[in-house]
């Protein structure tokens, strides 16, 4: 079996394991009535987040691949800026999202009103954001469960069978569709929107493609999945307070707000792609000069 065929086989197996473990578990929980409230949803999500890591481990085991290139090394030395960027990126694109919500969708952007409603000053609100970031970082092992699968295993394999842009898109789609049980249960969009749940899954694929580009960039720069896990943790747990600065609680426009949020992510993703292109060009030039 040649390398490409083997990579395709491994990708298919990984997807089968990751999807199978999560979807079957979610189905069983639904059957036993665990998924009926918020707590049950959180429980299933918590377990589900480890399924990509388990999927990659099982695939490595079945195809006798071993643990080479698992990207489990921290590689902190010389990569500190990427670890800081991992924490900063979700904050940056959520802030851009706030601005875009106000410009494109006319959402009210009045931080003072928000501080007043919550009953804290700007300093207190900022402190709460930093506190949430700290908790998110401490919870990174949960997100490592996903990142070991998507960025640590799937993305590098996809790159061996297709070009980089295609790999970004396919990885985003696989990651997005994986969320289907959660979207059916109302993740991000609720249940009352046009095209439920298909539109939700479609938008999730777009969102996952955007964030996937950023997380993959962080992983490639450091050759480690930890920055991606940090970024994922901050994205999921610490951006809510920043997003709350613009009034986005109009449920009838949930899809529009999500689409604008995804656009903000793609702005940061484009910057990552541009940086990659520039640094690759630089490396090529320096290699050519060295060869000459």
């Amino acid at each position, binding site marked *: 079996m040649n390398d490409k065929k083997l990579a395709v086989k491994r990708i298919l197996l990984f997807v089968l394991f990751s999807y199978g473990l999560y979807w079957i578990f979610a189905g069983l929980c639904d059957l036993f009535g665990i998924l009926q409230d918020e707590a049950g949803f959180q*429980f299933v999500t*918590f377990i589900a987040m480890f399924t990509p890591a388990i999927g990659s481990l099982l695939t490595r085991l079945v195809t006798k691949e071993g643990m080479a290139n698992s990207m489990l090394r921290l590689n902190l030395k010389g990569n500190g800026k990427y670890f800081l960027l991992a924490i900063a990126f979700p904050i940056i694109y959520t802030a851009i999202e706030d601005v875009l919500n106000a410009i494109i969708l006319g959402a009210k952007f009045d931080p003072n009103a928000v501080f007043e409603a919550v*009953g804290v000053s700007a300093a*207190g609100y900022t*402190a709460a954001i930093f506190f949430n970031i*700290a908790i998110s970082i401490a*919870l990174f092992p949960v997100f490592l469960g996903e990142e070991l699968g998507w960025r640590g295993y799937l993305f590098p394999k996809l790159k061996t069978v297709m070009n980089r842009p295609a790999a970004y898109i396919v990885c985003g789609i696989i990651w997005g569709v994986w969320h289907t049980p959660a979207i059916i249960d109302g993740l991000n969009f609720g249940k009352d929107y046009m095209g439920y749940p298909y539109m939700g899954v479609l938008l999730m694929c777009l969102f996952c493609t955007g964030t996937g580009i950023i997380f993959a960039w962080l992983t490639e720069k450091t050759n480690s999945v930890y920055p991606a896990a940090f970024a994922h943790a901050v994205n999921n747990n610490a951006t809510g307070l920043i997003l709350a600065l613009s009034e986005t609680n109009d449920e009838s426009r949930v899809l529009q707000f999500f689409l604008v949020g995804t656009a903000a992510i793609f702005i940061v993703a484009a910057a990552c792609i541009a940086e990659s292109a520039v640094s690759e060009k630089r490396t090529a030039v320096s290699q050519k000069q060295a060869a000459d």
Partner: protein
Amino acid sequence: MAGLLYRDLVLNKKNLLIMALGEIAISFLMVAPILFDGVTSETEIITSLLSVFVFIMLFLTLGVMTASIFEADESKKWAYFITSTPLTDVSQIKEKYLFTLLLYIALFVWCYFFAVISAVMGGSANVLIAFLMMCIMIAANAIEFPFLVRFGSKAGSHIKTAVMLLAMIIAFEYIFFGDLSIFGSPDKIFEFFEKFSDTSLMSDITLTVLAVFPYFSAGLYFLSYKLSCKLYLKGAEEYER
């Protein structure tokens, strides 16, 4: 580094196993009222209060164990053997600090998971306390470890006991002369801890202190690591005394 982490995992496997079983048993205290009495109107309040004490106990138990991670290296032969390996002594210290930090993070994730389990069963848990306890224990270890590295675990544990005695004296001083109104009734205790589960109930100063504290403990831990690197093996002659 992975090899060193594995070595410590093997050297401490008995301690870790006993501790893990203990931590699991303690965690179940949190949901004991649900297991024995089922879900009642007071379940949420009781489990939330219990979670505070359970999380404090879990982190204190782990805190006691962390000092033993340094004990394994404390024979003169072993201490000098370490310097003969290709890894630098800085790597040895880095691994100890990383191993301890990973244990705390693993325990915090466990607390988070158990909070979710408690919620599924109809209870409630205060994860914020677990996070704060983690930061407190990291800060405490940051102070303790340089002493362990310089004077060995025996002297280090004496220093730790002295610090704990000092803390107890301060606590007793507070009990005798401080403001105890918050402990006046169970409601007030619950109210006090409820503020720690909902950031919207906190004042600006509380929020700022809470936000700064995790970064402060992380910084202190890093400084402690740097100090330990400088002190490492300087007290090797005293290890076997």
